[in-house]
Structure formats: structure tokens, C-alpha cells
């Protein structure tokens, strides 16, 4: 177990600047998620921490030791590769046991101990039946579990898991999320976990970092990232369906959104906002769950719109609604949801709204 720290990492692949001054800290024993879209630099970061890639600039610390110049096999980290990277001519059993046998490892285990651990991990991942198969005889999801098993079979200072359950089917992925969290808690091994799936990060992480374009956008506990996104990118990326971001100006006591929707603000919010924006335009963010469908031209209705598109997600549905000035996503319960093309009224719950600077797209903190 060890804390992990990366400091000012830079990495360039030819024309592509993969990492730009990336820094973060992961505390000892933490389940740490690296969240970002494809191409954000997640895999590069994992490879640099593992020692497979050298950063152009910057340092990696494992525990209190600077390991930037230490080769991967001496770093005591275990990696699960997104692309599996299994040994093609070896059975699942041999793939799983090799990390325990490799000559450059100091820990020496007896054959019984190795077999015990391999079987343990295989059963845990539900691949106990497949131990004598070759990788090419497995499905994608099964291969991914072997890749994950090859990391979990060791008890290293840190696990580096690169999208380890991305290729599993939805049901299994859901189960594995729970399992991973439980395993990590039991072993207490520091874990860095990358994913492009914000829901996965929110549900697993003790602490998470959102990266984009090789830069840190925001670091913090999942709750904080969801509640207080620091910029428009994080606001849109975390939370599903994505937050509605609308142009707005202050108009006396109220907020005038897209020139059509007048929302009366609580006076404290209004004053704080007025102080910071000075009459300029702001970006107003509201999550789809905070917009309610009400009867059109009823008392509650603050806006009228037409339903353009309905996406049913089981008990809830996401509506895309619009009128001439405005287009919004609204989350509503599927039961009693309006029909396609229907005119509806919308009511806005202003308890948790977000404001961002129109130019820098940074959060305008009101407290």
C-alpha cells in the first residue's frame, strides 16, 4: 500500500500532446478514479505510473519514493490493460500465475500458494471454469476478466486498472463494480481506476479526477464534483443526461434566460450574482432532473415548449423539449410522460442551479 502522486507530467506522441502539466495525488488505500472522455490521456497516465512509458517531463511518486527512473518490474504495481494484453499461447491459468512466477519478482511463492491464489481470483471473477482455455477461446468479456485477474492475483503497492470492465455486458459490469469496490475495501490496496463512464466513477470512487485534453479539469470527492462542477466541461460530462447550459442575463430581481424565460431568484443568490457578473451575460446550468413537466398555461408553468424527442430509460424518461428560443433536456417519470409533439409547461427548481462565466466557462461561486 502506498500513496501515489504525479507531478507536472508532460507527454507528447509526435504531433499529439497527450499530457499537459498533469498533477494529482492519490492517498494511501484510496479508490481513485481517473475520469475523462476518449483521448483524454487516461491510458497514458496509467502507463507512466506503471513505468511502461517515460514522461517527457514530470515526476511520479510511489509512497515516499520518486520512481520516475525505476523500471516497471521494480515498481510493485499491477496493471490491468484495457486491451487485455494476454499471452496468446498460454492458458488462463498460466496467464494468471505468471506475474507470481516471473523471475524479476522478489516475492517467491510455493506452487501450492500460486495455485491457491490463481483459483481464488478466477472464482472471484467468475472464470474458474475457464482456467485451461487459451485466450483465443474466450469471449471479449472473459478475456477482460482474465486481464483484471492478472492484476488482482498479486498484492502489490498499487493496482492500476485501465478501463477494466469496459467490455463486459451491462449486467456483469454492474455486478463487477460492486465486487471491485468490495475487493478494494478488503485488501485496502491503493487503486487507480480509469473510466470514460461518469456513473462508474461516481459510484466507485473515494476521490476522483476529471481530465480532458491531458489536463486536470477538477479533482475532488464524487459528491463535490457532481454538486459543484468547476466549469462547463465538468458540468456537462458528469451527470446523465448532461446538464442544460443556457445563456442568461440578470434582469432586476429575476434571471432572464435565452431572452424568454424569467426566473425569479432568491434575493441572496441574486445579490451575490449581481456583484460578480456586473451586468454581463452568464451561463446558467440546470440539471434535467431539476426541471419539472407541468400543465401548459397552468399556474406553475414558467415556460411552454413542445416535446421533440422521448428517450425511455425504464422508470424515467428523458425528453428533449423546445420552443423558438430554447432547447432543454428534461428528466421525468415514464408514467404519465407527455407524448411526442405535445405542448407542455415547465417548472424550474432553483435549489441547485449553477452559474458559469460566459467567456471562461468557469464556475461563478456564489458562497
Amino acid at each position, binding site marked *: 500500500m502506498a500513496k501515489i502522486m504525479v507531478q507536472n507530467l508532460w507527454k507528447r506522441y509526435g504531433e499529439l500532446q497527450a499530457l499537459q502539466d498533469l498533477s494529482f495525488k492519490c492517498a494511501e488505500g484510496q479508490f481513485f478514479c481517473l475520469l475523462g472522455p476518449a483521448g483524454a490521456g487516461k491510458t497514458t497516465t496509467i502507463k507512466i505510473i506503471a513505468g511502461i512509458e517515460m514522461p517527457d517531463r514530470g515526476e511520479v511518486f510511489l509512497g515516499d519514493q520518486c520512481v520516475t527512473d525505476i523500471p*516497471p*518490474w521494480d515498481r510493485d504495481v499491477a496493471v490491468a490493460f484495457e486491451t487485455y494484453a494476454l499471452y496468446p*499461447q498460454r492458458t488462463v491459468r498460466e496467464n494468471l500465475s505468471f506475474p507470481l512466477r*516471473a523471475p*524479476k519478482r522478489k516475492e517467491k511463492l510455493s506452487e501450492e500458494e500460486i495455485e491457491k491464489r490463481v483459483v481464488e481470483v478466477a472464482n472471484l471473477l467468475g472464470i474458474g471454469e475457464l482456467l485451461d482455455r487459451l485466450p483465443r477461446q474466450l469471449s471479449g468479456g472473459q478475456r477482460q476478466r482474465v486481464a483484471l485477474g492478472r492484476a488482482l492475483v498479486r498484492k502489490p503497492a498499487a493496482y492500476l486498472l485501465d478501463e477494466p470492465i469496459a467490455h463486459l455486458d451491462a449486467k456483469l459490469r454492474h455486478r463487477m463494480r460492486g465486487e471491485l469496490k468490495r475487493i478494494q475495501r478488503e485488501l485496502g490496496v491503493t487503486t487507480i481506476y480509469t473510466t470514460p463512464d461518469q456513473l462508474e466513477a461516481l459510484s466507485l470512487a473515494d476521490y476522483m479526477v476529471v481530465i480532458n485534453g491531458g489536463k486536470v479539469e477538477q479533482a475532488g470527492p464524487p459528491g463535490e464534483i457532481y454538486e459543484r462542477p468547476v466549469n462547463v466541461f465538468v458540468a456537462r460530462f458528469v451527470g446523465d443526461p448532461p446538464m442544460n447550459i443556457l445563456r442568461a442575463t440578470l434582469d432586476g430581481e429575476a434571471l432572464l434566460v435565452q431572452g424568454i424565460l424569467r426566473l425569479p431568484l432568491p434575493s441572496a443568490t441574486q445579490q451575490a450574482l449581481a456583484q460578480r457578473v456586473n451586468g454581463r451575460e452568464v451561463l446558467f446550468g440546470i440539471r434535467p432532473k431539476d426541471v419539472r413537466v407541468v400543465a401548459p398555461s397552468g399556474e406553475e408553468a414558467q415556460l411552454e415548449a413542445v416535446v421533440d424527442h422521448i428517450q425511455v430509460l425504464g422508470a424515467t424518461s428523458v425528453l428533449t423539449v423546445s420552443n423558438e428560443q430554447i432547447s432543454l433536456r428534461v428528466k421525468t417519470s415514464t408514467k404519465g410522460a407527455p407524448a411526442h409533439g405535445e405542448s407542455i409547461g415547465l417548472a424550474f427548481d432553483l435549489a441547485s442551479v449553477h452559474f458559469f462565466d460566459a467567456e471562461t466557462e468557469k464556475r461563478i461561486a456564489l458562497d
Partner: protein
Amino acid sequence: MRSKRYITWWVLPAGLLFLLIILVPFITALTYSFRAFSFTDSTATGQFVGLDNYRKLVFDKDFYNSFKVTFLYMVPAIVLQGALGLIMALVMSSAVRRARILIPIMLLPTLLTPVVIGLVGVLVLNPDFGVLGIWLHRTGLIKEAVLGSSKWALPAVILVDTYQWTPFVAVILAAGLLGLPREPYEAAEVDGASPLQTFFRVTMPLLWPYFVVAMLIRIIDAFRIFDIIWVMTHGGPGTATEAVAVYAYRHTFRYWDFGYGSALIMVLFVFISIMVEYLYKVLQRWQRAGAV
């Protein structure tokens, strides 16, 4: 589909060429093999003799010898070319970019015609003025003229053949090596595998399809070796280097026995067809299996 109407016309030129230079000679040879047809025997004027030529072949000791020679040449040559080609490919693929400009130079022997390579071999091994021939003679390693010795002529052919074809094997393997995925290597690094383990666990299994293809192409080619041997030894001394194709050539164009020569060629054809069929199957299997 309207284009189907013209498809005959598009295929015609290639089809005609195929007919003229492959199908016609093949069928001619096939029919000759069932006839007695020789310039040196006035009774053999092309009359149909059924399986006579093939019957003769079954009892022909020299024919069996030619098969033995073919295998004695092929097995060491393929093993050598596979091993050296692999080493060469590993060097080529690990070479820094600037050194890669040397690769075309290494390929030179493969690009030249076997006749030229054979002549180079003859020159180099000449005991009076060949670099290697003089050296071998002086050091006393091989006292007689290499190509005149029934013991050393075949090894010399193998050596020259290897000189020509090793780069070919190397290029196929190097192309394979450069296309291998990097992740298994990275996993091996994290796992703490030794270089030898990495080679046997990662490189060889992933490179295997390329290796099989290169070797099969070489085996098929080796079956019908003719030109290098003809230029270097004419199949001699005696029958020491007389491979099947050389033996068939001797019967056809030295003894002018077209019937028997054609029968020999047909047997060779069957052998090579079996190998090609096998190669095709292997390639198909790799294609279906895809990359692991």
C-alpha cells in the same frame, strides 16, 4: 448489375494470357506424360502408351535419388533460412530509423535472379581465383574443388540458396514484428518477464503465423529448385545435386525424352499442389482466427 455484361471482356486479356502460358503448356505436358515421345528413339513417335512412363518411374532408382537430393537440400536450407531470417528480422525491426536505409541493400540477393546468384557462388567458390575457394583450399578445410566434390557440392548449393533467400524470410518476419501489438510487451514488462521469456511468451506466438507463411512459401519454392543447381553443378558431380526438377530437365532436354520428362514433372506438380493446398488452408485458418 449492368457491369456484369462487360465482365467477360475485362477478364479476357488476363484469361488469354493464363491460357497461353500456363494452361496450354500444362495440358501439353500432361498428355505427353501418357505418350512415348522421344527424339532419340525412332519408335517413340508420340503414340499413346497409357501409364508406361509412370510405371517406369516407379522402378527408376535415379528418380528416388532425385527426391532424396531434394529433401537433403530442402530441410537444411529451410531450417537455416528460418533461423537466420528470424535473427535478421529481429535486428532489422530493432534498428534505429537511420539504419533502416540499409534494409534495401540487405535485400539485394533476393532481388537478383537465381542464375546470377548461382554464378556468384561459382565464382566465389572457384579454387583458383574465388575468395572462399582459395581460402578453403589454403586452410586445408576442403582440399578438393568444392563444386566438383560429391560431398561438398550440395552444402555449397544450400549455402548459396540461403544467401539468396534469407533476406526474403527476414522481410516477411520483420513486417510481422513491426505490426505486433505493444501491449503484451508492456504487460510482460510489468510482470517482470526476462527477455528470453518475453521472446517465447510474446514474440514467437504472435509472430508464428508470419513464420509459418514464410516457411511454407520457401518449402514450395525449394521443391522445384532448378536454376541455382543448374548453374552451379548441372546436378553433378554424378547425381549428387540432382534434384527432381533437374532430373526432369535432363530427361526432357538432354535425352529428349518428352514422355518420361513430362511424367516426372507431373509427379513434382502433385507434390507442390499438396503443399499449396496446405498453405492455403493455413492462411485461411489464420484469417478466420484473427488476432488474439
